[in-house]
């Protein structure tokens, strides 16, 4: 099940998936351009964001590219690499984990590129899938030339091995991407006609775009010839061919992945098909060193000899490491955004890292305020009171992009419905006031509106709202970020202007995880729940932002939002091969204000040393794409 996510700088993060991007051809192009004195990218990414800081020009990097060298990056505070097996359990369903995993084991289809959303076919193992028989049969051909580091070719047997392990992991309840009804439930059978091809027979017809972007992207070919065993000293065989055997193999691999102390020495993890291989690992500090895989046969060979990953417990420690030269690629905390120019003058490149996630403030459709939040006009009025541009400019200092729906206003992406490129409910106190007045609300005592026309007619308050009910909803929000607090208070102030009372309930992000969602269970004391940062991320496990997992039937992270129309439109995203279906679902959820859509802060403000190149444009799924990096002198 996909989970709620928190911002990159908090201790808890939900699933943030991105891919290992290597972008071979692009990297070569960047290297060539760097020879000319600059490597500033200009395509996609953050460049067209109306408020993003200097993203349009990109970093200026001068010097001659050099082969080799070891670079390093700092993970956001509280994050660490601590899971090896590319079949992630719920506790390790994090994008910063899969970034590293997918650098060692290349997914069948890589999500995202340099500033681009969608599938990155040039660097993927699989060719574009072919759908036939009314979109019930999918044929995937593997690109030739991919080899494991032990010299064996990557074949369809490795895909079969993945399917076998995935089924075992699902049965064991240890496979986080699994959603009931989705892979492997939607697959009737898989056949393997030859070493380069496999054929998926679906239980019904699915949209090729959805099935490719949100199902086939889960597949990682895994080294059957090295991993198909049940203990370290056991022989490799076809152990996973049966369900019980697959469970034993999975348990063995799972246990091996739990053994952090053996990461650098376990032979299992040395058999890779990606450009990187683990070199050393410290289970105490999570300091991870990866070396370039000298046997890598895929596109986009790494320029660096290796890279290191550092984890930090505080922003101060991270900045100190960056200043002292330990870290080449770190970040400037948002609260210190005004120091950007200072760092520029000290020889760093500073760039906002905009990503393709969404920030949605939940309505409690099943809680005590359900009668109020269940009214579309009330949700519309609230959406009119969110001043996205002001929040971005003043509280985020420009480090964010507008978000008017399931997909954010990420420039250059064809996954965003045209309707989501502009605000369907622009900031307008008068429009909000007009909506409330037209539905039977009038100012009462204490400046708070009260329902004066109860009933279900078009000009009445709506079902479940008695006469005299005050227009007041408890707004729970996560503490710890002054910029987010300023946004919440500004929103409260705007609401107060139209007689809408929003008593604030500050909570730690961790507490909110245990309270918000669908109510009951849990203390049902919130009507609106606002998490700092992003709420939902897209990437390796979900490329199409149709809203199914977030807003579909039985959802948890949209507060129990329930709309037959939305369900039908979401189902159409799964079924229709047209992008119109995706756009229709996105547009409807936005216009229905399924959640309160809120500005999306950038992933981070990147601080990179001047002699580090190739990292720009940044990946929209928060992947570092180290294979594109190189040093200049």
């Amino acid at each position, binding site marked *: 099940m996909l989970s709620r996510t928190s911002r990159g700088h908090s201790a808890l993060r939900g699933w943030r998936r991105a891919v290992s991007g290597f972008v071979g051809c692009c990297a070569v192009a960047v290297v060539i351009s760097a020879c000319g004195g600059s490597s500033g990218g200009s395509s996609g990414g953050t460049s067209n964001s109306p408020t993003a800081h200097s993203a349009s020009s990109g970093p200026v990097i001068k010097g001659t590219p050099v082969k080799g060298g070891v670079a390093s990056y700092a993970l956001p505070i509280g994050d660490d690499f601590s899971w090896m097996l590319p079949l992630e359990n719920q506790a390790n369903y994090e994008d910063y984990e899969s970034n590293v995993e997918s650098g060692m084991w290349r997914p069948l289809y890589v999500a995202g590129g340099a500033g681009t959303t969608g599938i990155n076919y040039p660097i993927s193992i699989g060719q574009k899938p072919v759908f036939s028989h009314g979109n019930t049969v999918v044929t995937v051909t593997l690109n030739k030339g991919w080899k494991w580091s032990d010299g064996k070719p990557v074949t369809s047997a490795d895909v079969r091995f993945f399917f076998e392990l995935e089924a075992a992991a699902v049965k064991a309840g240890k496979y986080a991407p699994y959603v009931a009804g989705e892979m492997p439930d939607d697959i009737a059978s898989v056949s393997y006609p030859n070493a380069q091809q496999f054929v998926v027979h679906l239980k019904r017809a699915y949209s090729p775009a959805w099935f490719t972007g949100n199902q086939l992207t889960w597949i990682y070919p895994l080294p059957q010839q090295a991993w198909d065993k049940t203990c370290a000293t056991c022989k490799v065989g076809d152990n996973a061919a049966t369900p019980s055997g697959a469970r034993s193999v999975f348990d063995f691999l799972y246990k091996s992945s739990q053994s952090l102390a053996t990461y650098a020495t376990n032979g299992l993890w040395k058999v890779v098909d990606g450009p990187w291989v683990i070199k050393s690992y410290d289970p105490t500090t999570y300091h991870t060193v990866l070396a370039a895989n000298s046997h890598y046969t895929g596109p986009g060979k790494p320029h660096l000899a290796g890279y290191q990953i550092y984890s930090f417990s505080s922003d101060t420690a991270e900045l100190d490491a960056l200043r002292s030269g330990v870290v080449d690629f770190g970040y400037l905390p948002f609260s210190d*955004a005004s120091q950007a120019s200072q760092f520029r003058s000290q020889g760093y490149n500073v760039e906002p890292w905009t990503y393709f996630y969404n920030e949605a403030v939940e309505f409690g459709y099943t809680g005590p305020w359900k009668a109020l939040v269940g009214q579309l006009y009330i949700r519309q009025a609230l959406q009119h009171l969110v001043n996205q541009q002001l929040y971005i400019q003043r509280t985020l200092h420009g480090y964010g992009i507008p978000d008017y729906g399931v997909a954010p206003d990420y420039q250059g992406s064809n996954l965003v419905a045209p309707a989501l490129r502009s605000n369907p409910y622009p900031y307008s106190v008068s429009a909000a006031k007009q909506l409330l007045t037209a539905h039977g609300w009038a100012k009462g005592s204490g400046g708070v509106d009260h329902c004066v026309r109860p009933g279900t007619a078009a000009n009445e308050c709506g079902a479940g709202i008695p006469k005299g009910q005050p227009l007041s909803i408890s707004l729970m929000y996560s503490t710890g970020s002054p910029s987010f607090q300023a946004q919440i208070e500004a929103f409260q102030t705007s609401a107060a202007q139209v007689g809408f009372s929003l008593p604030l309930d500050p909570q730690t992000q961790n507490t909110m995880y245990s309270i918000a969602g669908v109510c009951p269970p849990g203390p049902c004391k919130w009507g609106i729940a606002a998490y700092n940062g992003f709420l939902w991320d897209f990437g390796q496990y979900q490329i199409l932002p149709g809203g199914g997992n977030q807003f579909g039937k039985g959802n948890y992270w949209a507060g129990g939002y329930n709309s037959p129309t939305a369900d039908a439109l979401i189902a159409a995203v799964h079924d229709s091969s047209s992008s119109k279906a995706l756009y229709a679902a996105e547009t409807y959820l936005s216009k229905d204000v399924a959640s309160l859509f809120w500005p999306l802060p950038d992933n981070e403000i990147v601080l990179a040393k001047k002699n580090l190149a190739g990292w720009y444009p940044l990946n929209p799924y928060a992947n570092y794409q180290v294979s594109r990096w190189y040093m200049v002198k």
Partner: protein
Amino acid sequence: MTTQGSPQMPTQGTPQAPTQLPTVVADSEVATPTSVWRLAMITFTENRLALIGLIVLVLLILFSFVGPLVYHTNQVATNLINENLPPSGSHLLGTTPEGRDELGRLMIGGRSTIEVGLGVGLLATTFGLVYGAIAGFAGGIVDVVMMRFVDALLSIPYLFFVVLLAAIVQVNLLMLILVLSMVSWLSTARLVRGETLSLRTRDFVVASQGFGARARQVIARHITPNLLGVVVVNGTLKVADAILAFASVAYLGLGPAPPATNWGELISTGINNLFDGYWWQLWPAGVLIVAIVLAVNVIGDGLSDVVEVRLQKR
């Protein structure tokens, strides 16, 4: 010095009632009769630091409660256009990240800070005094049970209470006072119980019991008054501790919801913006907290002098 007048049994520690004391005779001259309060005042004012502390406390109370009547600002609505403005003629101490006037914010923040400090100090001290006195005087199994309960509560961090309650109900000032009092009375109770154990074996207590005084009378008339010195000093420390604890809770964002504020929360915001050069969001709140905690502490020292017999002039 010698005393004249009725042969009153000497008490240890604090005088018992605000009645006139015996006439003081010094160097064979008859002195003016001095009330207990006057004597206390004289002793207190002789401690210059305590006097300064009292003046500071009064000024801070005036700043927090009278200030907003003089210096009008809107502390409810935000104005992001005015965020983080430096001090100027229109905003004497600049503005907050929400665009509110910082000086006005300090004033209303002071209200809740002082209210929590005094509220917790009073509640915790009163309850701890009664609880400790009962346990100490009763002794035996009652003492054991009561004090083990205290030990058990002492092992629970107060932040746990606050986080738990914040998750269940809406946190407000009264609730915070109650929660902080719930964890603050424990050390007072232990202190009082120890003193009581010592006092109950004293001759005047034994004599009182010998004359047939009931336990309640002994506690009320002999034990409690003699504990006053310890309790008053401890009480002032509780006020200071409560202010700091409130600041910690608020720093974690668990204080009363905005637009309410307090100095701890203002410090939290200030620290977040420290490297942006918004000094006005940190230092004034920090100085005010240090000032009030120091003031309360030195007042406690002064009160200690007042209730300490050896320092009193008779």
